[in-house]
């Protein structure tokens, strides 16, 4: 009896060993490691900042080891802040690569782009490397957790930032704010239209 059950156990163990590489292969076949969060509540914060108000200043660490300070662009460049909810998730993993091939639109409006997430730096580093080389800085709002997102009124109750865009002019004033449905990416042309409204 024990011999029979032992053989049965061996068969199941072999099945498990065969199944494991298959699962790993499937995870790689999509090309990127993506966590599927499912459908989320479209927005989960109270918007605090409207166009016409000064943009709160911040200094945050970036994935290249430098620190990025918003006020350093004052009088020099227009700034687009792109808050995204989380690394390695489907929409976020496409939104920034989309901006990556739209650099000319930012340049023609004398604007820089800063990507922000409440993930920590190592996570953002691994994720952005997975997406290819991004031309814009990606900064971490991890600690104090989501403090910048909170200042902009886009920190969700689960600790993630809303998927949101802020266009800030050279005077440091918010000219456009889009707190978007977290489940979908903002249209590129909507942002480009707002950029085109800015004076160089």
């Amino acid at each position: 009896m024990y011999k029979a059950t032992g053989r049965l156990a061996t068969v199941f163990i072999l099945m498990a060993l065969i199944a494991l590489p298959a699962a790993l292969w499937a995870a790689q076949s999509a090309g990127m490691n993506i966590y599927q969060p499912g459908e989320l509540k479209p927005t989960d914060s109270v918007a605090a900042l409207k166009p016409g108000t000064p943009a709160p200043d911040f200094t945050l660490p970036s994935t290249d080891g430098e620190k990025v300070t918003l006020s350093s662009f004052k009088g020099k460049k227009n700034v687009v802040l792109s808050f995204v909810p989380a690394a390695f998730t489907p929409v976020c993993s496409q939104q920034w690569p989309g901006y990556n091939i739209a650099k000319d639109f930012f340049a023609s409006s004398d604007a820089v782009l800063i990507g922000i997430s409440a993930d920590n730096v190592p996570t953002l580093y691994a994720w952005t490397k997975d997406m290819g080389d991004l031309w814009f800085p990606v900064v971490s709002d991890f600690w104090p957790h989501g403090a910048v997102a909170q200042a902009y009124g886009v920190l969700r109750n689960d600790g993630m930032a809303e998927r949101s865009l802020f266009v800030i002019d050279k005077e440091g004033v918010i000219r456009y704010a889009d707190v978007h449905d977290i489940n979908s990416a903002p249209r590129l042309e909507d942002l480009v239209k707002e950029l085109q409204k800015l004076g160089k």
Partner: protein
Amino acid sequence: MQKILLGITFVIALVSVGVAFAKEAPREMKVNVDVLSGLNLAAPTGSDEKRYLGIQNEKTFKLSDLKADTIMVQIFSMYCPICQAEAPHVNQLFELIQSNPQLKDRVKFLGIGTGNTPFEVDVFRNKYDVKFPLLPDDGFAVQKAFSENVRTPTFLSLSNKAGNLKLNAMHIGAVKDPGELLQKLLPKGGK
């Protein structure tokens, strides 16, 4: 004791197999060709693209309207980093078709930008100097033809007999070697 160990082993094995097959599901993504061929696709606006597809002034068309023995479709997204990285390879794939006298008039190749607006498709076209027609699909209509969330890029090869389309082959993911992918997509014996 041995029965307990056997029970634990059984549960672990069952869960492992279950997880593996659950994750395998996308590999078996099914495409409903009847749905795909019946979709109203936005006609291209460029005159070269219209001429290539044989479209006059229609605003929309169906894949089954195209006059070609084989129709190859790349489902892509302007936002997809893999599609961006693979764009030069896909351009090479199209050049392989166009430079082959036996394929040029028998195979039509086009891209559908799933979830992309015309503006977004234009950005992709201009960035990578794409010569084949790229069509917007901002309403995710093409998703209706797939059993799973369509992954980008996905390549489909459809044989066309008097407007009756059948699936020859499907390839999901990176191209790597345009020549190899072309051979995979061509109907057997259809070089």
